[in-house]
């Protein structure tokens, strides 16, 4: 025990020194920059300070501020950290078997921040995630938007709004996944009817609150499920909607118009069949790519070309991992396969970053390399769409959260014995792994 304490003291001393030396002010010089907004820059400079991007530009045009630690990034490519609009890591569980619509359930109450999945995610270049409950319900709960800062609890990962509240959307689904035995619906018609009924309740609830005009005597009893749906009706909470078949896609659009909620269509396997209709409705799509069609009837027409077709129709397109469906470490691959099938390179890069940020109302903070935005970025060894390219480093809010040259991080990047275990929490003076 005494030995541990002494080691602790040394550790603290080192840590303090390290923090002072860094001052959290870095200039990355010489990399190819893919800012997403604006053209790629062959020989660029990226300056980040205290968690924010301060300068992005060509070498020679951006002066490196005094006090900034200069990091030679020659031969590397830097682009924004990837934004994954649909992810299930963290050992999460949403609504239970008691009913098909459970807006009261918050996914973050089930999240294990020490899951090894988060280490794999930063190894894949992901920095911002929408963590969602599953698709076995019409509405399986509230999603949470997180930053992969590292940390022991979900509180360390929250992206907070200006009032300090955690941000997130709501997860809905239609089609066959949410059709189950009672009390779940058995048909598509019933599915839509149950959703409609619930949103009507939410409208009435909102009206009661409005009519009460702040009078506690007249206010309805609190209903935490309806409260979440009122946020949806008011556009404060975006609906992230699992949907595959073309007719299911149109049903989502119909319901969103009827109740005026903001929606992102997720998966959209048959989106290519109704691309113009989706474009006309102005609804964004978060597309999944998997290596073959099928696995269920509604996904037999899933194709690599969906992203490209939606792009050409004028739809805002993002991709998602749906991790564990696709391992977060190969998220770049999803966009690359879309390029293989006809999507433009620019749109595919945007689909991994800024488009996703827009679908989570986070585009003022993440998704591009622009002064004033969060310093979330990845250093790549080569072209983002090459199988041979490695994510070398991942930075979140000016802190390095993944370094391929660090053996501890490398283990999660490629896998190996122990990579499947939860991460060791960072404690200042006690290495969980060494002492176990």
């Amino acid at each position, binding site marked *: 025990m005494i030995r541990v304490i002494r080691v602790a003291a040394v550790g603290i001393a080192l840590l303090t020194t390290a923090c002072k030396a860094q001052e959290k002010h870095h200039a990355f010089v010489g990399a190819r920059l893919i800012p997403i907004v604006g053209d790629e820059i062959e020989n660029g400079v990226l300056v980040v300070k205290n968690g924010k991007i301060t300068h992005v530009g060509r070498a020679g045009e951006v002066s490196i501020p005094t006090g900034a630690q200069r990091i030679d990034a020659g031969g590397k490519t830097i682009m924004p950290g990837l934004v994954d609009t649909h992810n299930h890591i963290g050992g999460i569980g949403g609504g239970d078997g008691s009913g098909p619509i459970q807006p009261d359930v918050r996914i973050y109450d089930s999240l294990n921040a020490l899951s090894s999945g988060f280490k794999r995610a930063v190894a894949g270049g992901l920095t911002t995630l929408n963590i969602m409950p599953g698709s076995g319900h019409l509405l399986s709960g509230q999603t949470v938007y997180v930053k992969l800062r590292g940390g022991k609890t979900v509180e360390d990962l929250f992206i907070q709004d200006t009032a300090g509240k955690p941000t997130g959307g709501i997860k809905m689904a239609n089609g066959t996944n949410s059709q189950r035995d009672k009390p779940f619906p058995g048909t598509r018609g019933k599915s839509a009817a149950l959703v409609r009924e619930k949103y009507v309740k939410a409208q009435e609830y909102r009206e009661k609150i409005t009519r009460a005009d702040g009078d506690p005597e007249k206010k309805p009893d609190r209903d935490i499920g309806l409260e979440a749906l009122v946020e949806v009706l008011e556009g404060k909470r975006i609906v992230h909607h699992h949907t595959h078949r073309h007719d299911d896609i149109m049903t989502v659009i119909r319901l969103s118009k009827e109740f005026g909620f903001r929606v992102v269509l997720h998966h959209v396997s048959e989106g290519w069949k109704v691309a113009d209709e989706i474009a006309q409705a102005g609804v964004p799509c978060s597309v999944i790519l998997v290596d073959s069609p*099928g*696995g269920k009837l509604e996904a037999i027409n899933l194709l690599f070309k969906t992203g490209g077709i939606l792009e050409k129709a004028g739809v805002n397109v993002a991709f998602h991992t749906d991790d564990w469906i696709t391992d977060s470490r*190969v998220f770049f691959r999803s966009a690359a396969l879309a390029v293989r099938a006809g999507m433009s390179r620019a749109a595919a890069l945007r689909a991994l970053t800024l488009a996703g940020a827009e679908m989570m109302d986070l585009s003022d903070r993440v998704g591009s390399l622009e002064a004033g935005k969060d310093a979330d970025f990845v250093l790549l060894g080569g072209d983002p769409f090459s199988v041979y390219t490695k994510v070398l480093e991942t930075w979140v809010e000016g802190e390095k959260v993944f370094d391929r040259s660090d053996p501890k991080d490398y283990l999660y990047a490629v896998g190996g014995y122990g990579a499947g275990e939860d991460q060791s929490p960072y404690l200042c003076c006690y290495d969980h792994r060494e002492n176990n």
Partner: protein
Amino acid sequence: MRSFDKTVLFMTLAGLALTSFPALAQVAVRGETIHTMAGPAITNGVVLIRNGKITAIGQAANVAIPTGFLTIDARVVTPGLIDTHTVVGLTGIYNHKHDQDQLERSAPIQPELHAVDAYNAHEKLIAWVRSFGVTTVHTGHAPGELISGQTMIVKTTGNTVDDAMLSDVAALAATLSPMAQKREKGKSPGTRGKMMAMMRAQFIKALEYRQKREKAEEDKKPARDLKLEALGRVLDKELPLMVTANRVQDIANVLRLAREFDIRIWLDGAAESYLMVDEIKAAAVPVLIHPSMARAWGEYKNMSFETAAKLVRAGIPVAMQSGYESYVPKTRVVLFEAAIYAANGMTFSEALASITIDAARILGIDSRVGSLEVGKDGDLAMYDGDPFEYTSHCTGTIIEGKIVSDRVR
């Protein structure tokens, strides 16, 4: 360049419609790079295929294309790809009861089942993998029961299983991993120990059966037992036992079983085999490595993108498989799985060999397929760039001289 290739292929196929099909028996494929897998790659080469077999291969300057041959141009040509363990044809795209024949769950030991009796040559997933260059698959039973049946090797073409057949019985499929454990109370096997006990008892029974059949008087021979006959073929080393095992203790069990009964093994999955390199090498066991993009949880939780490279460097024969998927993607594509291994320690040649010639050697079909050599089957795949690159396309697939895929994918 890419659009040029597409145009060429399109023109070729347009021409195809005008000619009669038998003309396809004579095909010339011109490749900017031809990876023969039987020597160094050929730059600006030609492969001639007549009546389904390769009749000439070499540099364009040395191989004249006879008149009457349909000529196809490609940037990169490889042998037709081989998937050493899949379930396509038994598993179907819909994932409904009616198209899921990859695993019989009524009993843990059913070696008498034949993949050939369950193969749907029209299955869409076969056409899907074919469109990425896969021409030969070792297909059959999915992991999940202790001994689940006899696998087979087919070409990814044909109207019936007989048309597609390369080897009607290739291996006996087995599982020594938690996937084969029963969770229900009172059902066996429920533990690793029980799995091994049941497996050993079954092989001992097969040994005794074989002795009795060989030595007993004609009228005292035991009645034929299809289960024990199948196991007997494994004991005779006529068939390998393909055993799925991923955790280190499960791999050790497989090797122990092989020693006790002196049987041939194909180690399937092998996620933690990087811990067992010396032992696997000493046992001369080839590895059908799990898909690189398998999900890193359960018995795959410690899987590594670098395992294939580590095994190959140690001199262990390694081949790729698409494996079995219960949900989405309904099948993986062995080309994509090899690509991730190619980017994580394997050389380009090692990775390509693991889906061509090395795969053919492990499966024992290298006299027919796996490399582009005179006398071998005219099976090849064409690409418009490095086949492993995400953004390259497969521009066509040929099996025994016939174009079986004309999509640019």
